[in-house]
């Protein structure tokens, strides 16, 4: 059983480690998105995902949404850590 001082120390320690954890999460997400993008682009190029009218827009929609979200996550992380 922790005493109150140990408890406060453990909170302080977890708060100190939080930015590292968040950057780690960001790294995993970016890696996951990059792998997903390559796979999506491969399928889009080879099989033209979407209906005839949407072939160009599908890729644009994908790149725009994933790019914007990664940018928001990165900005939020910078604001939090700096």
């Amino acid at each position, binding site marked *: 059983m922790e005493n109150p001082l140990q408890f406060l120390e453990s909170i302080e320690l977890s708060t100190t480690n939080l930015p590292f954890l968040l950057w780690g999460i960001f790294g995993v997400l970016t890696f*996951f998105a990059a792998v997903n993008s390559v796979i999506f682009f491969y399928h889009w190029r080879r099989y033209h995902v979407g209906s005839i009218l949407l072939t160009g827009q599908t890729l644009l929609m994908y790149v725009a949404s994933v790019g914007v979200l990664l940018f928001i996550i990165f900005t939020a992380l910078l604001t939090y850590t700096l």
Partner: protein
Amino acid sequence: MAYKLGADEQIIKVIKKHWFILLRKVIGLFFAFIIPFVAYFAILKINDLYNIINFDLVINKSLAVFFGASWILILTLMFFYHWTDHHLDAWILTNERIVDIDQIGFFHRQVSSLRLERIQDVTIITRGFIATFLHFGDIHVQTAGQSREFILKGAPRPQRTKELILRQYELAIEKNGLSSIDSV
């Protein structure tokens, strides 16, 4: 479509699944999408009413944006996965055969083809109110011999597609000088 046709082969129709099949898969993602917004505003509202905590001190806004955007990014990637999967599943009806393209995962693609002369029976199944109302259903094509059954789940306007398949079947039989199902 990255699919090679024979010398005299012509594509009659490319049949893809009904849009409702995709909607059914992604509707859960939509509800998951609104969860962070609902939770955020619910916490704000409850805090305004009861003044439980100093919100700015406890919940860091940048952190909330970080987790909210991460959540939405994961859902977006899942949406595009379903979108790709939906659009890569197709049946190609040509004047010679039916090609069944089944995208099982991103790197698992199964392509089978069935010559029209080998068709024994075409059955359509429309289950439930929504399928009846939105005109979609399953098409089962039974082949001769011990071959497997071809199934396209959630095909739009199955009756029309069935008629089209049977019409092409009749034409293929005539072309090859064989006897049709009805004359047996």
